[in-house]
């Protein structure tokens, strides 16, 4: 197998150019998109390197740390006993993640966190301060008003701005 350095696959949640976007692989509630043919390196977290890559906390811990050191990306009760609509909610999650990535071109590599409370959908996102503030408000108003009729439920967006990508650990 060719040794694929995962620096490109590191941010594997983005689609990687034309034609190579493969199927979605779900690992522990997190989406990773890469061609199925490539060896699945970096699946269980980021490979240990020389300590020169800066990664966020989310990326530094692999899927085995979910519910230990990390939380989940989407919080809903669909997977509890007796509850249904888990599959529909997963599809909605995928769409929302990609939608936010496209609408806010300066999103961090951290995926958005989706919470479903009663009838409401809350999307929490960390954004960089690349756009002026009034443009953020425009995009927020636009997303909320577009997604609410889409899912027939109130969609609420909570942004938190950071000056630059928050580095979780430098050891990778």
């Amino acid at each position, binding site marked *: 197998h060719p040794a694929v350095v995962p620096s490109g696959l590191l941010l594997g949640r983005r689609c990687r150019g034309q034609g190579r976007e493969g199927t979605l692989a779900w690992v522990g509630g997190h989406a990773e998109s890469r061609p199925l043919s490539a060896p699945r390196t970096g699946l269980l977290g980021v490979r240990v390197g020389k300590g020169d890559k800066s990664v966020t906390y989310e990326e530094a811990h692999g899927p085995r740390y979910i519910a230990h050191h990390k939380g989940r990306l989407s919080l809903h009760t669909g997977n509890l006993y007796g509850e249904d609509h888990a599959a529909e909610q997963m599809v909605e999650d995928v769409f929302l993640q990609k939608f936010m990535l496209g609408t806010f071109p300066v999103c961090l590599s951290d995926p958005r966190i989706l919470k479903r409370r009663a009838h409401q959908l809350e999307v929490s996102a960390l954004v960089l*301060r690349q756009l002026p*503030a*009034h*443009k*953020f*408000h*425009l*995009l*927020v*108003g*636009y*997303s*909320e*008003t*577009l997604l*609410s*009729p*889409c*899912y*027939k*439920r109130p969609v609420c*967006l*909570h*942004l*938190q*701005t950071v000056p630059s990508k928050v580095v979780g650990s430098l050891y990778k």
Partner: protein
Amino acid sequence: MAAVATGRWLRFRCKLWLTLMGQRAGPCGQAPSCRFYSGSATIPKVEGTNITGIEEVVIPKKKTWDKVAVLQALASTVNRDATAAPYAFQDDPFLIPTSSVESRSFLLAKKSGENAAKFIINSHPKYFQKDIAEPHIPCLMPEYFEPQIEDISEAALRERIKLKKVKASVDMFDQLLQAGTAISLETSNSLLDLLCYYGDKEPSTDYHFQQSEKSEELEEAAEENNKKSEKADHQFGVTWRTKNNAERIFALMPEKNSHSYCTMIRGMVKHRAPARALNLYTELLNNRLHADVYTFNALIEATALSVSEKLEDKWNNILELLKQMAAQKVKPNLQTFNTILKCLQRFHTFGRLPALQTFREMKAIGIEPSLATYHYIIQLFYHHENPSKGSSLIIYDIMNELTGQKFSPKDPDDDMFFQSAMKACSFLRDLELAYQVHGLLNTGDNWKFIGPDHRRNFYYSKFFSLVCLMEQIDVTLKWYKDLIPSVFFPRSQTLIDLLQALDVANRLEVIPQIWKDSKEYGHTFHNVLKEEILMLMARDKHSPELQVAFADCAADIKSTYESQDGRQTAPEWPANSLNYVAVLFLRAGRTQEAWKMLGLFKKHNKIPGNELLNEFMDSAKASNSPAQAIEIVKLASAFSLPICESLTQRVMADFAINQEQKEALGNLTSLTSDSDTDSDSDINEGK
């Protein structure tokens, strides 16, 4: 204001506690056996007593609660958070607005994003059809703006009228007429309604935003224009073209009932063609039809709008109209009286007596006045006031009557009351009255009547300025923390008022904090404010810690001036500011920077003050360096200041200088004295 609310909350809580205690136990110390007693605490409980003396149990009536009663009860326990930004903004320091301009632009941006999303949804409704909400949520479904019925029929016309498409419905009407179809009176009337409401123009998308602003501007313009005579009609806001579609269709209608006439009259008045409206009214009377109350309201407004008549004549015309209204047995409503008062408001002093008569009449009939009524009355009595003459005391009567009342919206002008009330309070310089008005604002749901942004800002600016002027400094600072910036962003005049209040109360140590706040609210480059701050800090000597704080603040202000210089081509350091900053540096012991300031004087071509030079001399003496002293004298002579003489003498007296320095000084003084003697000799020769 916050104290009142907390008091209310505490009382609410105490009441809860007491009722709970009353239900649970009898007198203290005895075992609760409330199962057998109906909660009365006076019946003593004795062990083993036969329980025969129970009174009849009264079952209370079942209460019906509102669906959101629990939420309302919870909401009543929470006060406004004075540190939070309004919830419409995202809760993040980068995204919270820091000035009123920013807050308006953010809200507009959010609204335009929403409009963009709505446009997308309504252009592609087929993607949003899937209805998974149970029960159905109508506001999340796409709306249909395109007419569905394509053929030429009356149903198609009705649909277009419902969708508010002005041009399309007029076209459809014409097509129907050409085809020869008879159109029912109902449909024609509704078409007339549509045309008259929108004035024969398409409704724009931000119709409601612009509507209120435009009408206010037109109001003010109309007031000014009442003084001039002829051209008022044509200059401002006449949007009713003669022979427009409405009139044409009106003429084409085979039969007209009173509804048609009424609609036309109201449309004409709305779009500022009062004379035609009155003509149409006479036509209505000739056809022996009756007008309804809304039409009479419009006619009253038309009478007041018509120019080139004296005020008494206008008032008599209005009275005539009212008599006709009574003859036609049309009952007046709140709008009638409000319209009368609005017209009287334009008559200024002449309108005072009729206004009071109108108000009494309204009370006599039993119509409850709304906030707009009081607003017009206040405007009449306090708008063009001359402070030298005595002011009327009517606002006290008004406030006494209004205290504790809760209002519901009844008139579009209701939200102007608080602005005019606070303006009158500020004019009368009465703080108690202002507190009364503010208390009324916080009663029940009355906060909804504060109006749009600019009115709210105006109200709170005036309120806070009055508080600064008349209230003790501690209370003022509490109001400052409470109101700014969560309720309104202060203008620089407000901050200057606050600074003057601090000055009067001798609390100048708060000034660096105020400067920091001013930077946050966008006043970094406001020169008047900065000069005021510097002047207050530099005026007197203070304790050493305070001087250090002041010097830091002055350094900050200096850096803002410098960054301002970098941006503009013409540097703009006022001379006073340079003086003050240098003085503050000296007093705090930052002599290096103070000397650099002296260099700046030369660079910006400004003259240092005499006291400043004396202070520099003092500091030079304190640090015992004659070189510095000579520097100062050189600077003074470079500017050819008259103080140069006294400075030189002081240097000679106080410092130990060697011979060459003395000669240099002598040269300097001789230069200046030469020029002096020259000028003296000139004067002598001239005599």
